[in-house]
């Protein structure tokens, strides 16, 4: 076993147990990504001290960076493990679970907070039934489509939340990913029906006021979602909504 792949993994047996580090070495093979390497380790869960241990737990689905399930810190950077190619990484490859979400086990975290927040801001397009409404579908300009397409690629992976200094367990901040989704759905002709509701949700405690403009979120997003653009846009929309509430109620 000349060439090896060396992992250093932060493990935790359960939600409330103490974390600990464990190292693994496996034979090198070209073109591994972190998940495929972890699959190998699941078959051969032997650490560097030769002990057979419980295999490392993690989540993954799509294996092509579109589901977001495999997000973790790879060498300290929040990203999708399935898209992290071993050949590109410095060794030992350090894997840690995301720090802003409750840990289920080892590298698997519970991102439920994000899904709850999506519900809170009504991040969907309302439909009032499947009957014929005798209207053609709303028309959307290609320029709008292009911007919205970018927003629509968000996979709720949580990398932006991980990098945001304002998002942590002592703050009620809703987190950057939600701004992309609110901007997306507010700009949709039918989705816009809920615009005021969404803006009010963002004006509630923990909403947009929680953002400190550090702009880390945009830098780490694997899908290049223009979150800072969304934050600026929603800053404007909430300003207008606020004035409207003040003057028209």
């Amino acid at each position, binding site marked *: 076993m000349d060439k090896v792949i060396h992992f250093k993994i932060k493990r935790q047996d359960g939600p409330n147990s103490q974390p600990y580090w464990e190292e693994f070495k496996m034979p090198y093979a070209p073109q591994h990504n972190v998940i495929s390497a972890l699959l190998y380790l699941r078959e051969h869960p032997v650490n560097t001290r030769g002990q057979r241990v419980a295999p490392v737990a993690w989540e993954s689905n799509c294996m092509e960076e579109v589901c977001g399930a495999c997000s973790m810190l790879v060498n300290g950077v929040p990203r999708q493990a399935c898209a992290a190619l071993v050949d590109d990484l410095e060794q030992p490859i350090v894997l840690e679970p995301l720090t802003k979400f409750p840990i289920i086990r080892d590298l698997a975290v519970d991102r439920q907070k994000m899904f709850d927040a999506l519900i809170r801001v009504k991040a969907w397009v309302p439909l009032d039934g499947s009957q014929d409404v005798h209207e053609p579908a709303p028309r959307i300009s290609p320029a709008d489509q292009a911007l919205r397409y970018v927003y629509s690629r968000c996979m709720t992976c949580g990398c932006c939340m991980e990098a945001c200094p*304002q998002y942590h367990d002592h703050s*009620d901040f809703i987190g950057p990913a939600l701004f992309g989704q609110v901007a997306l759905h507010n700009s949709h002709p039918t989705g816009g029906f809920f615009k005021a509701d969404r803006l009010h949700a963002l004006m509630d405690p923990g909403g947009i*006021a929680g953002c400190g*403009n*550090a702009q880390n979120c945009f*830098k780490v997003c694997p899908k290049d979602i223009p979150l800072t653009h969304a934050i*600026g*846009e929603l*800053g404007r929309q909430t*300003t207008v909504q606020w004035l409207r509430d003040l003057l028209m109620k």
Partner: protein
Amino acid sequence: MTDTTPGLLDRYQFQLRRLHSLSGIVPIGFFLLFHLLTNSTAFLGAERYDTHVQQIHDLPWLPVIEFLFIFLPLAFHGILGIAIAWQGKLNVRQYPYMDNWRYTLQRITAWITLVFVAIHLLHFRFAYWFGVPEYASAHPYFFAFTQKGFLHLWLPAWLWICMYVIGVSAAAFHFCNGIVTFCITWGITVGVESRKKLSLVAGVLCIVLMLWGFVSLYALTTMTRPAHGAAEAARGSEQRISTPYMARHETPSAARE
């Protein structure tokens, strides 16, 4: 997102944060510019400085103006700012991006400025609490009085100067970066490009404000006589020149060295 009943600060988080952002520009930022403007007249000569300070002291309703447009906003911005500062967990070591540095520096300069403003107020505005004559009583020799505050009051001059250099720089950065975040918060600059341009303008402004402050500091601490003797002569204020600047305040309490 917990369902404990939120306090006032939480319930009006959005409104308070917006007012916090606004108060940093109007009136505090404007006051900062005005203050730098007045101070820098020291560079044009003690006479000019004395005249401008006197004009301010002659404003009607001065205590009310001072309270409503300076002390109240400062207290609001400062106290709420302290509350906000606790909400962030700095992570610039992990994510050393330029904007993250600015976010971090905005918080660091906030603390420095807070301490500096407190010192500055005690140093001049409220020094009379400690037995120094009131600033207003220096009439009409404000320049000399201020200079004395730097050179012969409580601390060695170099220490005052260091404090003011640091304080003025921190305040300038905090204000200029505050303009950038103000424009994001209120949705004035939305796109990344517009933000970059504004940051550039703010950066230049920051340097200008710092230099502007240093010029005043230089003038107030080193210039010993009116720089523009010509202006002096033009006013024909002979007897004023002959009046020793310190004379009025060589009272025992102010003259400890």
